[in-house]
């Protein structure tokens, strides 16, 4: 059985969205709005993120959590390019294809509405994004801080037909402890002399 945690799916969704921008997303506001409209037009039972009304329009703490996690494990890089920062996904082409294929197979509606939201929102200037986000009925009919809609409830999802190997790869790709540990041990290993050991005596005597 192939299983993924909700948190992993959300991080994968953020990576999927970020990898659509050729040079990285120019500021988190456009990422938030692209993902909001992707979810808004997708199946309400399977929305990936919870959004609330906030000052700059619709905002999701879950996207911010995903961004913080991804940055911590080196999956996104941020740099300042003019007045805002660019956020860029750091994933191999193979991983990009694997993530795209995952959403195509298991969240096809979300994938289609992400494409449409990206085409509409991805390259607008910030003033226009904020103005249009404030004009949206979801914003107009809610109060500051009020939840507009919530993400799916389960913390863990089973995926029928998915290979175990694929589930493990996707999960490891966005596992903070795994990725941080790997990098920490590598940084340590590079400083040590490459010496062998008599593992037969250590484990099997």
């Amino acid at each position, binding site marked *: *059985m*192939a*299983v*993924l*945690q909700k948190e*992993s799916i959300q991080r994968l969704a953020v990576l999927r969205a970020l990898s659509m921008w050729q040079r990285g997303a120019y500021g988190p506001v456009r990422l938030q709005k692209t993902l909001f409209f992707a979810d808004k037009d997708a199946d309400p039972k399977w929305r990936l993120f919870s959004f609330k009304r906030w000052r700059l329009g619709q905002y999701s703490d879950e996207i911010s959590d995903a961004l913080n996690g991804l940055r911590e*494990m*080196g*999956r996104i*890089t941020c740099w300042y390019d003019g007045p805002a920062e660019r956020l860029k996904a*750091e*994933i*191999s082409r*193979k*991983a990009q294809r*694997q993530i795209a294929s995952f959403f195509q197979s298991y969240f096809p509606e979300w994938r289609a509405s992400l494409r449409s939201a990206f085409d509409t929102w991805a390259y607008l200037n910030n003033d226009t994004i904020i103005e249009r986000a404030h004009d949206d009925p979801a914003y107009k009919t809610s109060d500051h801080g009020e939840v507009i809609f919530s993400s799916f409830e389960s913390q863990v999802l089973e995926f029928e037909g*998915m*290979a*175990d190997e694929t*589930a*493990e*790869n996707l*999960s*490891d*790709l966005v*596992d903070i*402890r*795994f*990725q941080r*540990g*790997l*990098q920490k*041990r*590598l940084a*340590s*290993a*590079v400083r*040590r002399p*490459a*010496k*062998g*050991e008599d*593992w*037969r005596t*250590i*484990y*099997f005597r």
Partner: protein
Amino acid sequence: MVTLDTSYVRQQLRAIADSSNAVRKLLYDTLERLETDPSSFPPLDSVPPTVAARYPSVSFRKAKIESGRHTYRLVFAQWQFKDRDDHVDVLYAFPRRSGYPIDWDEVDEMLGQ
């Protein structure tokens, strides 16, 4: 012959070796294969490109040890040198149910933490 260093996962490999005779045999075979032909293990796809670029002489690979309800994963770095044989550092060894995320509580439990 490839040199093999398992010092990062000493405690974990001892626990794996003690889990059952079948697993012990599989662990032996895996370590022996790591020493003779590490390139025969599949690559680890989840390494960020920035990390891979920082260590161009390293290949990241994984090995599975599976016997009945016991399933484990080994993650290792294979260093390649111009003037000597390869070196392998086993960076991770942990229990894992096939197709599931890593259960870090189970990993900590294995280490008695």
